[in-house]
């Protein structure tokens, strides 16, 4: 067991190191993306243009020996453009028949760039693929090759002509990571690296089988019952109008986190424990991953929007108010 854990940590560190060759700083984003991949989850990256979101995903695909496709979402993008379609093809016998032409979704890593620019119809085409990891076209279900990740980006500004992601789709993302501006030294490093003729070459650090083993190990990591209960209480505390809700949730939330939020928190905590060399998830892990795992699952009410309250603000208050002791039915107020 200790060998497997050591292998996990080693692989994680190698991938991170390879990504570090092209991505300067953004440690939280890189860690978060890698945690989501280790937990077999999808990631929504939100940030203004030019912060390296697309570069990060491309570098990741290079560091892990996986197939990669990029889809630029635009308002006129159709579901078939992503999933694929049946085309009338002539077979070697000269007879014409429908033949399925795979779309870009048939890849291990799919970069859905500016996903909020596509229409809801097109966005919804991703739902089955993200959850069931299969595509239904022409009445036939086609399995996607494991592992399968959707790494989507969206731009928080320039909202005209965009279509906010439906809640169902948002809920399917394991993490929502907010990409922020680099600091002064980081920006200097970015400029230095990108304006020189010779650039670092990203090596493949992990292959597909190794990644699958890592994902399997993550699910085995034990979570103490009181840590699990704490995660449950956190999720329950976000449900407004219930006995378990904290005040801030009642005041600012219209809907709280779904059970997927709890699953994501626990899985992410497990990955974080492994990456830190521990063999069990802890309260600290839960607290560290809660924002990224839950922020996109909370729906703010009008009062919160009017006051400029964000889901991060609500979640921080929830983390403050929920005690680490107690049963799932109890939320310390």
């Amino acid at each position, binding site marked *: *067991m*200790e060998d497997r*854990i050591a292998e996990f940590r080693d692989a994680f560190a190698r991938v991170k190191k390879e990504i570090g060759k092209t991505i300067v700083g953004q440690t939280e984003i890189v860690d978060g993306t890698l945690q989501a991949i280790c937990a077999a989850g999808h990631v929504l990256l939100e940030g203004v243009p030019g912060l390296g979101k697309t570069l990060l995903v491309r570098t990741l695909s290079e560091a892990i020996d996986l197939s990669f496709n990029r889809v630029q979402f635009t308002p006129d993008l159709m579901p078939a453009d992503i999933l694929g379609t049946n085309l009338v093809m002539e077979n070697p016998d000269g007879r014409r028949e429908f033949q399925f032409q795979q779309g870009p979704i048939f890849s291990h890593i799919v970069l859905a760039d500016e996903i909020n620019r596509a229409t809801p119809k097109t966005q919804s085409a991703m739902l089955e693929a993200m959850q069931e990891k299969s595509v239904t076209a022409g009445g036939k279900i086609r399995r996607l090759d494991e592992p399968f990740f959707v790494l989507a980006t969206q731009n928080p500004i320039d909202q005209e002509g965009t279509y906010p992601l439906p809640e169902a789709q948002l809920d399917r993302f394991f993490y929502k990571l907010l990409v922020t501006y680099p600091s002064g030294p980081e920006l200097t490093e970015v400029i230095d690296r990108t304006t020189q003729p010779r650039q670092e070459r990203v090596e493949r650090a992990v292959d597909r089988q190794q990644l699958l083993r890592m994902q399997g190990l993550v699910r*085995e*990591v*034990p979570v*103490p*019952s*009181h*840590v699990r209960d704490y995660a449950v209480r956190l999720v329950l505390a976000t449900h407004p109008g219930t006995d378990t809700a904290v005040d801030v949730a009642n005041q600012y939330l219209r809907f709280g986190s779904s059970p997927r939020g709890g699953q994501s928190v626990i899985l992410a905590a497990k990955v974080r424990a492994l990456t830190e060399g*521990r*063999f*069990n*998830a*802890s*309260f*600290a*892990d839960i607290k560290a991953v809660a924002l990224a795992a839950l922020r996109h699952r909370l729906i703010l009410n009008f009062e919160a929007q009017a006051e400029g309250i964000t889901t991060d603000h609500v979640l921080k208050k929830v983390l403050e108010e929920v005690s*680490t*002791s107690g049963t799932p039915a109890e939320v310390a107020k």
Partner: protein
Amino acid sequence: MSDLQKIRTVLARAARHRRWSRAWNGLLWGVFAASAIWLLALVAFKLLPVPFAALCAIGLGACGLMPVGFVWGWWKKDSPLDTAKWVDNELALKERLSAAIEFQSSESWGGVLLREGARSVSRASLGSVLQYRLPRVARWTVLLLFVGVTLGFVPEYRSQRMLDERKQAEIIKDAGTRLEHHAKTVLQYREPALKPTEQAMRSVEELGADLQKIKLTRADALERISNVTDRLKEQAQSLENPEAFRRIRQASRSATGATGGDAELQRKIDRLQERMGGNSADLDALKALKKRLDQLRGSAADMPTGEAGTTPDLSQQMGADLANLMQLSQDQGLSLPDLDLAMAAFQQGEYDRVAEMLDSAQVDLEKMLEMAKALHRMQTQQEQAGRDLGEQLEKGQVSTAYQNLQEMIRKMREGTDGEEIRKILQEVSEALDPAGGYGQCQALLRQALQQGETGNRQASAESLQQAAEELKRLMEEYGDMQSLLDTLKACEIAQQSVGNCQGWGACQGGGTGNGLSSRGVGTWADGNQMWKDFDPDLAQRWDNSGIQRPDMESRGHTDRGQGPGTEGMIPTKVRGKFTPGGPMPSITLRGVNLKGESRVQVEEAISAAQQEAQSALNQEKIPRAFQRGVRDYFDDFN
């Protein structure tokens, strides 16, 4: 030691510490709760009419929370998993211990987790968290206790109505106590001769007990006292025999007294003479002896100490005086052994001892003088007593007359000679008129006289016996009457006390008819005057009228500060009105004669008056109770 054993050892130690720590915290929480409850009770006591006993009870009950808190904290026993969680939290072990305990039996992860847990425990410093600390509640406890102690110095607020009610209840209870005590004393020492009188006294006793036990309003208490008073009055009216009682009362007020009789008085005289050494010293001679002794004591005190300082003349003079004094005392038949000792000391030249012995002799002599005075007084009484039956009845000396009659009856029955019988009949015939007011006594004496004159001695003696019984009945009725009157007086005082809401002592100013003046500062004996009735002569000595007691003077003239003024005398500032409901405090000040015509501007006059008033205030010429009123009065001119 395996990893699991290491972890269990640490957890057992931590669990023990945690249990005691929880008990300690429970104790402090108990102290906090007790302090809070006691503080609330104290606040309630200060603001509301809560009895002091209730405050004490709440305080004691609250103290019980401390052991309860301790036991409550100690009782709970933690499981190893709970202890592991606590150690994880205290040492920031990131749930390594709790995970190890929870998954110790897991095949794949158990070993790893136990190793990690043991490693983390060995690295951490467990001693740093196993310390007993004061919880935050201890600060609040200290604050509460401080507030409570401070509040203890704050006088409690009680409304005037409540104070009045409380005072009223105390006065009713006190009146009940005194009435019950009075009735019991009467029943014990002056047992009523008549059943109705005894029943009336019992009703007073019951009334006293009721007033003490039952919470009554003023009206109810007055009604009950009034009912009993009416009953006493009815009983007293039924016993009223104006003529006989008037004479007996006169006799009791006179120096001779009526209750003792010749025999008793003679016994007292004999007893006193026995104490004086069997002789009846002359009062004047004793006074002269005392005067000589005082002079000799003065001489002895002036004698220089030591033989060196004494002159032969002085010594000779003193010896002569001492010898004269001894001769005088021997002439009077007095026994003053200290004089002999003084003489012995003088002969040995111990002048200091002479003075001491003379002092002792003076004390003895003063005692003898007191006894001689008492003896003289009694002898005077004996001389003033009636000489025959008629005179005794005339003077109201019923007891003496009763004894006289008994003596006559004895003689009549014993068959004394005719001359003696004739004297007896003569005395009886002279007593007929004075016996007129003593019920059937006159008729019975007349009957005895007639029977005696006809020679029927036995019948005459029988009639005399009936007359004596009649006198005895009258004496008993008089005794009952006196008891009833005393009790009526006590009931009146009780009514006055309850009705006016004044203390018992303040209501008995009229005296009890025993000759005591109502003036004076009073003594401890005034609290219970019942016993004075048994010896009115002694009671004379406690009249302390005219004695000054500065320590008992009213407030305002001592350093105890200004006392609370009585109702109606507290100055009230009312602008623009004169005497709006009470007399305006005023005082005569020496100043300018205001007669005649004044040509001074009014402003100047006011200013001058204000200055004079201020001067008078500064010189403490104005009583403190009026200073504020005077100051406000003159300030209002501005």
